[in-house]
C-alpha cells in the first residue's frame, strides 16, 4: 500500500509512537524512528508510479494532495536526508535527555515537509507549513538557555512569513474563490494587476523567510547554530528548501504570468545575490563552526534564489541542481561539525584544532563538503556553479554575475577556515585521545561524500530528474549526455574528460611522490616545525586560529559594521516599551474603569452621527 495517506500516517504515527516508546519501552524508540524514516524513503520512492491524487472536502475547502515531478524531487531530498540524519542521530543524541520530545518533533518536521511538497492546494500547504514551523521551533529550543530568545526570533520571523503567505491565500480566496493551486495558476491573470503584485510579494516574503532571504535571514544563523546537529543538517539541508520550493512556484508559475515579471525577476535576483555576498562576508568572520556553516547556508540559498529568479531553463536547472546538492553537502558539513562536537564538545574554531589524524573519515567528509561548496571540479558543486554563471551571463545579468563570483571566491575563505581550524593546524595534547566518530555517524557522512563525487562525474543523474521536474514549469528539455554540461551559447564542459584528466594526473603524481618517499619519510609532530631556529616546547601554543582573516575583516569593515539584526532588535524594544506604556490604560482603579464606561457611553451619544450615521 503506497499512497500519500499512508506516508502521512506512517510519519506522524511514527512520531507519536516514538514519543510513547520513550516513556514506556525505551529500546523500541530508535527502532521505530529508523523504520519510520526508512519506510518514508521507500514510499516516496514508489509514489510516482502508484499514487493517485487524494481529494476531499474540509470545511469550505477542497483539499487536494497529489504527486508531481517537481514535488517528488524535493520529497526525495527530504526522505533521504531525514533517513541519514536520523541514523546519524542514534549515537549523537544517545546521552541527551528528552529524546521522546526530540524524535517526535523530528518526525513531525519530516511529515510536515512531505505535506508541503505534496500539497496541491493552498490550505493544506499552509496547514503543513505551520506544522513544520512549530515542530522545528520545538527542536530549535531543544537545548541551552539562550535557545529561548533565538527560538522566539525564529518563530516570530516564521510567523511573519507564514502570515504574509496567509494574507496572500486569503486574498486569493476572496477574489478567486479557490484554494487549488492549479486553478490559481490558470486564473491568476484574472486578478487585478495590483492584486497580482501584492500576492506575489506576499508569497515571496512568506517563502523568503524560510529560505533565509535577506533581510529576513536574521533568525537563521542562531537557529541553525543552536539546534541539535542532526536536526541542523535537516534544517539547512531540507527545511530551508521548502522556501525554495515555494519561491520556484511563485516566481515561475505566478510571477511569470504577471506584467511585472521582469521587475520581480531583477529585484529577487539582486536580493539573492546580495544575500549570497553578505552572508559569505559574515561567514568569514564567525568563530563558531556551526554558525559559519549557517551563514554559508544562507549564502548558498542566495545562489539558488538567483537561479530561480533569472528564470532561463539553464538557470532554473542550476538552481534546482544546487538546491538538491546543497541539501547533501550542507548536511555533510553540519554532520562533520557535529561529529567534532560529539567527540570534543565544542565547535569553536578558536579552540578545536588538528583532528585530521584522529577523525580521518570526518575530515574526508568535510573535505568533500568544502570542495563541493567551493564549486571546484571534479565534485558536484562545479556543475551547479557553472550552470548558474553561464545562465546569469547569458541572460544579460552582467553585474549580478560579478557579485556572485565575488561571493563564491570569498567563500573559499570561510571554507578553508572551517576545515583548517577543526582538522588541520597544530595537534594539541588536549585532543590527543579523540577517536573517530561512531559508525552510525561516519557511514551516512561518507556515503553522501561519495555521492557528491558521483554527481560531479555524472551530473546527468541530477540533471535528468530535474529536467523532468521542470516540466512542471513549462516545456524544458535537457537532452544532455550524462556527463556533459551545455550553456545557451553552445559551449560545453565534458565532465568525464575533466574527471579522467584530474584523476589520471592526480594518481600519477601521487604515485610519483609516494613511491620511495612515503616509507622513507618520518612522521613528525606539528610541534616539530620550522620556527626560525626557536624550538617550541610541548606546551607552546602555535595555533593560528584567532582572527584568522583579520586583514580581510579590515577590508570589509564598512560592510560588517551595519547590522540589520540590531535594527530589528531596536524595533522590538521600542515596540515593547510602547506596549508597556499602553497597558497602563488598565490602571487597576475601579473608578477609572467606571469613568471609561461613562465616557464610552457619552462618546457614543455625542458622535452617534459619525458612528451610526444618525444624529441623536
Amino acid at each position, binding site marked *: 500500500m503506497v499512497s500519500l495517506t499512508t506516508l502521512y500516517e506512517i510519519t506522524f504515527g511514527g512520531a507519536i509512537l516514538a514519543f510513547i516508546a520513550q516513556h514506556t519501552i525505551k529500546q523500541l524508540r530508535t527502532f521505530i524512528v529508523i523504520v519510520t524514516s526508512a519506510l518514508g524513503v521507500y514510499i516516496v520512492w514508489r509514489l510516482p508510479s502508484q499514487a493517485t491524487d487524494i481529494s476531499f472536502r474540509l*470545511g469550505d475547502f477542497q483539499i487536494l494532495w497529489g504527486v508531481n515531478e517537481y514535488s517528488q524531487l524535493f520529497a526525495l531530498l527530504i526522505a533521504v536526508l531525514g533517513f541519514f540524519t536520523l541514523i546519524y542521530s542514534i549515537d549523537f543524541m544517545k546521552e541527551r535527555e528528552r529524546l521522546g520530545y526530540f524524535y517526535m518533533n523530528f518526525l513531525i518536521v519530516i511529515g510536515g515537509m512531505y505535506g508541503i511538497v505534496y500539497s496541491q492546494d493552498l490550505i493544506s500547504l499552509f496547514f503543513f507549513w505551520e506544522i513544520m514551523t512549530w515542530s522545528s521551533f520545538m527542536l530549535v529550543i531543544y537545548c541551552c538557555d539562550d535557545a529561548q530568545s533565538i527560538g522566539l526570533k525564529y*518563530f516570530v520571523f516564521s510567523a511573519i512569513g507564514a*502570515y504574509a503567505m496567509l494574507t496572500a491565500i486569503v*486574498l486569493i480566496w476572496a477574489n478567486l474563490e479557490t484554494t487549488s493551486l492549479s486553478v490559481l495558476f490558470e486564473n491568476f491573470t484574472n486578478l487585478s494587476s495590483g492584486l497580482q503584485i501584492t500576492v506575489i510579494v506576499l508569497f515571496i516574503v512568506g517563502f523568503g523567510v524560510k529560505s533565509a532571504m535577506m533581510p529576513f535571514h536574521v533568525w537563521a544563523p542562531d537557529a541553525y547554530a543552536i539546534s541539535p546537529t542532526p536536526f541542523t543538517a535537516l534544517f539547512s539541508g531540507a527545511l530551508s528548501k521548502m522556501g525554495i520550493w515555494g519561491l520556484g512556484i511563485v516566481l515561475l508559475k505566478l510571477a511569470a504570468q504577471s506584467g511585472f515579471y521582469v521587475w520581480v525577476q531583477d529585484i529577487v535576483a539582486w536580493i539573492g545575490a546580495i544575500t549570497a555576498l553578505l552572508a559569505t562576508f559574515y561567514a568569514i568572520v564567525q568563530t563558531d563552526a556551526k554558525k559559519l556553516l549557517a551563514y554559508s547556508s544562507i549564502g548558498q540559498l542566495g545562489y539558488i534564489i538567483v537561479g530561480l529568479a533569472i528564470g532561463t531553463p539553464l538557470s532554473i536547472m542550476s538552481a534546482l541542481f544546487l538546491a538538491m546538492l546543497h541539501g547533501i553537502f550542507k548536511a555533510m558539513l553540519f554532520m562533520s561539525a557535529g561529529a567534532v562536537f560529539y567527540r570534543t564538545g565544542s565547535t569553536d574554531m578558536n579552540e578545536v584544532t588538528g583532528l585530521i589524524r584522529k577523525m580521518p573519515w570526518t575530515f574526508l567528509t568535510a573535505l568533500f563538503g568544502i570542495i563541493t561548496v567551493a564549486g571546484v571540479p571534479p565534485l558536484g558543486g562545479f556543475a551547479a556553479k557553472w550552470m548558474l554563471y553561464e545562465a546569469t551571463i547569458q541572460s544579460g545579468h552582467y553585474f549580478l554575475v560579478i557579485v556572485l563570483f565575488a561571493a563564491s571566491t570569498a567563500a573559499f575563505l570561510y571554507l578553508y577556515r572551517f576545515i583548517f581550524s577543526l582538522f588541520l593546524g597544530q595537534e594539541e595534547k588536549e585532543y590527543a585521545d579523540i577517536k573517530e566518530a561512531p559508525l552510525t555517524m561516519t557511514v551516512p557522512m561518507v556515503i553522501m561524500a561519495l555521492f557528491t563525487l558521483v554527481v560531479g562525474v555524472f551530473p546527468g543523474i541530477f540533471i535528468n530528474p530535474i529536467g523532468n521536474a521542470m516540466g512542471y514549469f513549462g516545456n524544458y528539455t535537457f537532452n544532455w549526455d550524462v556527463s556533459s554540461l551545455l550553456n545557451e551559447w553552445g559551449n560545453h564542459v565534458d565532465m568525464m574528460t575533466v574527471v579522467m584528466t584530474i584523476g589520471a594526473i592526480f594518481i600519477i603524481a601521487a604515485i610519483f611522490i609516494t613511491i620511495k618517499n612515503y616509507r622513507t619519510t618520518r612522521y613528525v609532530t606539528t610541534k616539530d616545525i620550522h620556527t626560525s631556529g626557536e624550538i617550541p616546547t610541548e606546551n607552546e601554543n602555535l595555533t593560528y586560529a584567532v582572527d584568522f582573516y583579520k586583514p580581510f575583516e579590515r577590508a570589509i569593515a564598512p560592510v560588517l559594521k551595519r547590522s540589520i539584526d540590531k535594527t530589528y532588535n531596536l524595533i522590538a524594544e521600542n515596540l515593547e516599551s510602547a506596549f508597556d506604556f499602553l*497597558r497602563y490604560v488598565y490602571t487597576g482603579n*475601579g473608578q477609572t*474603569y467606571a469613568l471609561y464606561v461613562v465616557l464610552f457611553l457619552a462618546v*457614543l451619544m455625542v458622535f452617534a452621527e459619525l458612528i451610526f450615521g444618525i444624529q441623536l
Partner: protein
Amino acid sequence: MSLSPVQFIAVPLFAAFLIPLIGKASKETVKLVPGIVLLYLSYVALNLFPRGLERPIVEHIAGFNPPFGITLYYGPLAAFLTTLVTLIGFVIWLYSYKFIIREPFEKYYMLFMLLITGSTGIILTGDIFNMFVFLEITAIAAYSLTAFLRDKDGAEAAFKYLLIGSFSSTFVLLAILLIYMQTGTLNLADIALKMADVPITMKIFILILFITGLGIEAEIFPLNGWAPDAYSQAPSPVGAVFGGIVVKATIYALMRIVYLMFNFHSVLHFFVIMGVITMLIAEMSAMRQHQIKRMLAFSSIGQMGLVIIAFGLGTEPGVRAALFQMFNHALIKTLLFFSAGYLVFHSGSKHISALDGLGRDKPLTSFFFAFGALAIIGLPPFAGFWSKLYILLSVADAHLVTVVVLILISAVIEIVYYLRVVSRLYFKRETATDVRRTPLSGLAAMGILAVVILFVGLYPNTILDWLTPAARELMNTSEYIRTGLHLNSGLLSINF
C-alpha cells in the same frame, strides 16, 4: 420525563438550591452534584441537538402563547451554545473537583450551578426581560466567585467587577424599559417585528445602551477594565468559567439583540472597529504582563475582540467563523486556565518568572499549557487554526484587508507572549521542585479538552456542520420571528 430545553435552566437552578441542603448532610456528596447535573445536561444537549438543528423548538412557559408568555427558543444556535456551555461546565466541574478544596466549597458549587443556569438562560430565552434576569443571575454569581478566595485582592477585584457590572445592569435595564415603552412587548421576536416602527433616534439610543451595557460583560474595550483583575484574582476554574461560559453567553446576547433589532450596516462596522481596537490593545497589554493569569485574561479579551470583528462583518461566513472561534476559544482558554492554575499552584507564585523549568518537574501540566498555547495562537493541527483561518477568510471576503493585516499582527504579538512562557517552562533551569502531584481529575479535565481540540483541528467538518445552521439562524431574523411567534411565513412582510 421527556427531554426539553427547559431542563437546561431548571435542572441546574434546582441543583443550586439543593446543594446547601445536601451540604448539611454530607459535604462530599455536594461535590458530585454539579457533575451529575452537567453530565445529565450534556446528555440532554446531545439528544436535543439533532432536533434543534432540524426545526427550532419553541417552549412556552406558564401556558401563555407569545408574545405574552415566557418563551424559550431552542434553535441551532442555542443548541450549539448550550452544548458548549454544558460540556465546558462539565470539564470545569471535573477540574474543580480536586482544585476547589477550600471551604466553603459547597457555596462554590452552588454559585457555579447558578452561573450555568444564568448562562443557559441567556442563550435560551426568547424574552428580553428574562434575558436581563439571567444576566443578573450570572453576574451576581460571577461577583461572588471572584471573591471566593476571600483575600484582599479577590475582594478588590470583585468590588471593581460589581461596580462596573452595576453600570451594565442599569444600562441594560434602561434599554429594556425603553423598548417596552416603545413596543409594548418583551418577546424578542415580537420586538424585532415592532422595532421597525420605533423612531430611529430612539433606536440608536437603545442600541447605545445595549452596546455599553452588554459590552461590559462582553469585554469590549474600554469597558473591560474589570476583566483582568477578576480573571486573575478568582480561582483558576472561575477564570475558565468567565472566559469559557460567561463571556460567550453575553456576546451571544449582544449579537442576538443587534442582529435581531438593529441590523443595519453602520452598526456592524462599528463592531468591526471596536473589535479591532479591543483585540489590539488587549494583545499589546498581554505582552507586558508579569502574571500568567492576567496574561491569559488579556489574551481572552483579545480573542473576544476577534469574535466581535467576525460578528461585525454581518455575513454568514463571518458569523460562522465567529461561532467557531467562540467554540475553540472556550475549549482552549479553559485548557490554558486549567494548566495555568496548577502551574501557579505548583510554583507558588502568580508570576511568570516563577515558572522557570516547571516543564521538567510537572511535564504533563506544562505539556497541556504548551498545547493550549500552540492551539490558541492558531497553529495547525489544532482547532484554533481553522477558526482563525475562517475569520480571516470572511474578513477578506468583506474586502477589509487592513483588518486582516491587523489580526495577523496581533497574532504575532500573541505568539511572542505565549511562546515566552512556553520556552520558560521547558528551557529555563528549574528554580524549585514541588512534591505535590497534579490530581488525576485535573489532568483528566485537561486531557479531555486537549483531545477535543486536536480532534476538531483534524476534523473541522464535525463542528462546521453544526455551525452553518447556527450561523444561518442568527442571520435569518425573519425565520426567527416566524418560528418565535408561530407565524406563518405568509404573514410576515416586514422590511428591515
